[in-house]
């Protein structure tokens, strides 16, 4: 009745039939090469691809026990020049029917890539009711799905917390207990974005940091800024209609918040575009008062930047609520393992199996701890390597349960771009926040038409 299913089934049948026709125990030799590409990765993230290599070893052993001979060669690559270069390479390779079998990329790519058929629904190959997939955080699986289909397996998680430099906070009057209580206060909405600006001002006025360093946000475009939209009660996706949402009032408050920060002098007008290098070294050495960043920054602060006593120096929490409409929140932008349309059904099945094995808590923890990302599964809390890492375990508990994600929607990228342009314009004073909102609205109407609900 359903032709595609039929085709799939027939292939399956032939494979089974061939397998069945072999006398039991006879070696069933199979050699294949699986390519894995990971984007946005560097040496510290090598386990994104190495986990697949490890999984291949396990799968080979399993096959061996069953009496089959399986030889999997895993080819890995992650030295792309940035996310742009990686995605370009994957997409063009896929158009040339030459994509790697497995890609590790941001979950946001699921929407366009599934529409074009570049990726296969992973739920066709693996059972989310069995180990280890049944142990994954539900919200991460949700983020790996599109149109009700699970396309990917989350590879890691992170979150973009709010940070404060403890010595400065103490100088402006917070006690140790206050600081310990702060994440809770943030979570309950008792400490808001308004307090952020006020404290930033105090820190600056106390001469602890230079002008414009009181509130020291991310220096470039990024998903982080949507957290502030949520802080003011903005919604990105309307869950009932599946359409994007542009909440003008909430967005205007975001623009006003950053415009006000510049106006108060706690953030530099030309802050955007500051090189990351400089930014890292500044926030890791107390040159900034309050800032927001990513959980993975921990590795950089304590590694290259040489911050010895992280927990004594840096307070972290959810991004505070902006007003009573919104609440404290954080956004996670998990990477996901995706199986591409490359190769036969059989290849895809093996690729999916490799991904499943690579998602075992122990293997995934290697990546989480080495790269300072967060885990993907509940039981990782009981893997010693994970549990013994103060950062991983504290951050997971404090942040991950409250993490949401940017929507998987083909229209989100123009929305994202438009939102950022408006923010940049109000930040640098090119436009008033109201004007910027009006411009974003007209652009969204052109770009997205009926795909977005404007409130």
């Amino acid at each position, binding site marked *: 009745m359903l032709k595609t299913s039929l085709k799939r089934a027939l292939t399956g049948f032939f494979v089974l039939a061939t397998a069945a026709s072999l006398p039991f125990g006879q070696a069933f030799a199979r050699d294949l090469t699986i390519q894995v590409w990971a984007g946005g990765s*560097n*040496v*510290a993230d*090598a386990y994104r691809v190495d986990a697949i290599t490890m999984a291949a070893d396990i799968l080979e052993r399993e096959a061996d026990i069953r009496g089959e001979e399986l030889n999997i060669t895993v080819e890995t*690559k*992650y*030295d*792309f*020049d*940035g996310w742009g*270069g990686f995605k*370009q*390479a994957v997409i*063009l*390779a896929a*158009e*040339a029917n*030459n994509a790697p079998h497995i890609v590790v990329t941001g979950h946001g790519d699921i929407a366009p890539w599934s529409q074009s058929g570049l990726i296969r629904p992973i739920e066709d190959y693996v059972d989310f009711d069995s180990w280890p997939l049944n142990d994954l955080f539900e919200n991460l699986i949700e983020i790996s799905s599109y149109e009700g289909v699970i396309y990917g397996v989350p590879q890691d998680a992170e979150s973009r917390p709010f940070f404060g430099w403890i010595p400065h906070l103490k100088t402006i009057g917070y006690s140790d207990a206050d600081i310990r209580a702060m994440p809770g206060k943030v979570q309950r909405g008792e400490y808001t974005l308004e307090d952020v600006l006020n404290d930033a001002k105090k820190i600056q006025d106390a001469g602890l940091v230079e002008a414009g360093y009181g509130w020291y946000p991310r220096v470039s475009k990024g998903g982080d800024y949507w957290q502030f939209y949520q802080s003011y009660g903005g919604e990105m996706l309307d869950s009932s209609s599946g359409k994007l949402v542009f909440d003008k009032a909430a967005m205007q408050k975001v623009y006003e918040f950053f415009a006000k920060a510049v106006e108060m002098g706690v953030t530099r007008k030309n802050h955007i575009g500051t090189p*990351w*290098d400089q930014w890292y070294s500044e926030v890791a050495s107390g040159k900034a008062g309050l800032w927001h960043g990513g959980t993975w920054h921990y590795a*950089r602060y304590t590694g*290259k930047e040489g911050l010895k006593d992280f927990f004594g120096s840096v307070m972290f929490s959810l991004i505070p609520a902006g007003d009573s409409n919104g609440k404290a929140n954080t956004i996670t932008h998990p990477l996901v393992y995706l199986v591409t349309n490359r190769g036969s059904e059989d290849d895809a099945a093996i690729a999916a199996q490799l991904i499943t094995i690579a998602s075992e808590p122990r293997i995934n923890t290697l990546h989480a701890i080495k790269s300072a990302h967060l885990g993907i599964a509940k039981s990782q809390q009981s893997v010693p390597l994970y549990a013994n890492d103060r950062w991983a375990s504290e951050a997971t508990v404090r942040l991950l349960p409250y993490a949401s994600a940017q929507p998987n929607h083909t229209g989100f990228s123009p929305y994202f771009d438009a939102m950022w342009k408006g923010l940049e314009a109000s930040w640098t004073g090119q436009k008033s926040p109201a004007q910027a909102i009006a411009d974003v609205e007209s652009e969204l109407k052109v770009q997205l038409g009926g795909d977005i609900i404007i409130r």
Partner: protein
Amino acid sequence: MSQNFKNWPILTGLVLATVPIVLMYSYLVLDTVTDTKPGSIFPNSFTLEHWRFLYEDIEGKANIWQVTLNTLVFASSVMLLVLSVSSTAGYALSRLNIPFRREFLAGVLILHAFPSITLIIAIFLILQLIGLYNTLIGVIIVMTSLQLPLGIWIMKGFYDSVPWEIEMAGLQDGASRFTVWYRLVLPQVRPGIIALGVFSFLSGWGEYILPTVLAPANNVQVLSGYLASLIADDRNFEFNLFKSVGLFYATPVVIMYLFFQDKLMNIYGGGTKG
């Protein structure tokens, strides 16, 4: 040239304007063998540490020698192809009675100043259609094609300046048109061939976008992509390493340049006289 004017004001002005170039390139060399602390002007101690990439692969990166070999193959193939195709086509357009010669020439002239790189999406599609995506050969052919209008134009200019009598004499001496071209005319345009050859080799050697987009695979990576991916990796930010790789990358260029500098100045010798 003239003794009637003083030189020092000119010299001073030029020296000032040239300071950034001199600074950048001399520190390029200096920093590869020293450790200059970030933010300080003077290098301190001598070290060969930044050159370690020559004998041990940087983690997660391709092998430098493989990449260098790719680059060499890429640049020299582009050079040879551009030279052979431009020198024949340029001759045909300059000297041979072919129908539509006018149209060909106008075409070359238009393409000569054309936004070629913006066509890259379509180029990708064609390359993919003929199965040359992600191969060095594919990028070589594309790079050559994009350089051809300039190459043909330059060669035509050089051919135009060869005296007709030489060719006429050759014909009278009983040589075929091909022999005349090969044995008599080609030697006359040697400056053009050298200039164009050096120019296209250098363009191939330095090209970044085409290989990056059309052949991203590791085994066909060229030095531009290697260096760019090194820089993109923001957890390994080390200027001295970039510079060492950069110097390694630039050395063949600089050597060629020293040898052929005068010749390269000739590049526009034929093609742009109005």
